[in-house]
């Protein structure tokens, strides 16, 4: 079974626009999913500059899916979807 990868953007835009609150994922994910999910903090993913007009930061990538206006709940929901696919 492949691990689900979660990349949290720690670029300044994402962090300031709400991404700071996503740091809770570092506590939640290992507890909830053990080694089934790999969580990394990533430098700017570049999504804010492409999509700035829609102001959808913060962004998180779960496998290849982009979660915009990400919250802890939205990221967990996407992880569940990806796990269900396997």
């Amino acid at each position: 079974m492949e691990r689900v990868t979660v990349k949290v953007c720690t670029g300044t835009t994402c962090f300031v626009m709400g991404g700071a609150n996503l740091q809770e994922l570092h506590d939640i994910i290992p507890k909830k999913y053990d080694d089934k999910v790999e969580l990394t903090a990533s430098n700017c993913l570049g999504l804010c500059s492409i999509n700035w007009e829609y102001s959808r930061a913060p962004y998180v990538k779960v496998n290849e899916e982009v979660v915009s206006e990400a919250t802890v709940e939205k990221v967990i929901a996407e992880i569940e979807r990806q796990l269900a696919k396997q």
Partner: protein
Amino acid sequence: MNNSGQTIHLKKEILVRIIKAFFSDNFERHTRLIPYDMRPKGMEVPYRCCVYKERAIIKDRTIAGLGFPIEEDDETVSLADYAKQALERKEISDKNLTVLQTACKGCATNRIYVTDLCQGCVARPCQSTCKFGAISIVNGRSVIDDTKCKKCQMCINACPYKAIVKISVPCEDSCPVGAIKKDETGFASIDHDKCINCGRCTAACPFGAVHERSQIIDILKAMKSDKKVIAMIAPSIIGQFPGNIYQLKTAIINSGFDDVYEVAQGADITANTEAKEFTERMGNGQNFMTTSCCAGYNQLIKKHLPEIKPFVSDTKTPLYYTAEIVKKEHPVAITVFVSPCVAKRAEGYDNRNVDYVMNYEELGALFIAKKIQIAELDEGKYTVEASKQARNFGYSGGVAESVKKSLKDEDSVKPCIVNGLNKDSIKQLKKYATDGVCEGCNLIEVMCCEGGCIGGNATINNQKTAKKLIDNFTQNSEDISKI
């Protein structure tokens, strides 16, 4: 306080756009276009009835971002004109909060209301419990006469069907001193004579109607001038941005400032001075002393709690000492205090060594507008490294701890921590002042925001994570020197 959610996102986005407009080839034109850029023709309307209302409200929010009071806007002045006036402005205002009153329309007046759950029972406990004769029975159901009701809520507790409810107005409920009220017209307004600038209402309003009047344009103008502009960052900034505070120094300089000082540097002086004063006061037989570094608490003392003044430490705030040092070293520089606090705007206004105040949201917006990636920057150095205890000043308990650690006899300090000003804690403080005693304690630390400054209204990070990041960072800092 709540630092996420759509209204905060919206406020930050507007700040970014104002700053981008400032640095564009045509500030006035680009400011005028902010509502249209954010809600372009044909866009699906996210919150309100139509795109026109959305734009009108974004315009109002932009007025606050430019530093003007929304209440005084008569709708005929364009954002381009406001931008122009902001550029020409020489003075800032001492009124720090402004209310977007059109947002208040969606919010019912604060009252006690009998719902359809009322069974019209025979016992009528609501009627017999009301001391003001405000409840009568009409068509077999209870009805409250609002002119007689004192909102004591006795009837709510008396009704066995839970049929009576209090309709809340979040801004009014959140205000610890009754300074914000919805008036007969249904609009909320702030009584600035009563307001202690705690900023609760900005966080409490679900419509995001209460705004800080930003000084960002004044700060950007100062950067464009030939004067040095120096940032003084509050201790609570640790953990509010990506990277560490050394990378943050580089980021702040890249964003247009000339130098950065840690206000924790002044916190070391505050802690040592306060410890000395504490020993003197205890020696003179005083029962307790309270801290004096919280700007919200200082406003409370001035406006609502003068009786506690004799017990309040005369020691100045960390900002006071830091700004004094900066102005001594750079007499003609412009100083900007960076914090998550509305009340510090009032303190800054009253202190001639502090020229402007900006909050973490505004600094974040400046970084975004300037495309600064903090986590990828090299580290800068601070001329003076602050102590561990001084860097912990921004959370509840941190100030009392620093006073304790400043003394050789640490056990002489018996702290009482007031973690957040609300109606109950204010009542408690009043009692300490009138009794002249705080049982079992001799040092009362007061912080206006729950959790301390890390719970301030313009924080970027949530309190729990912020506290953890501060502790991780400061465990490698030196201990405070003893007096």
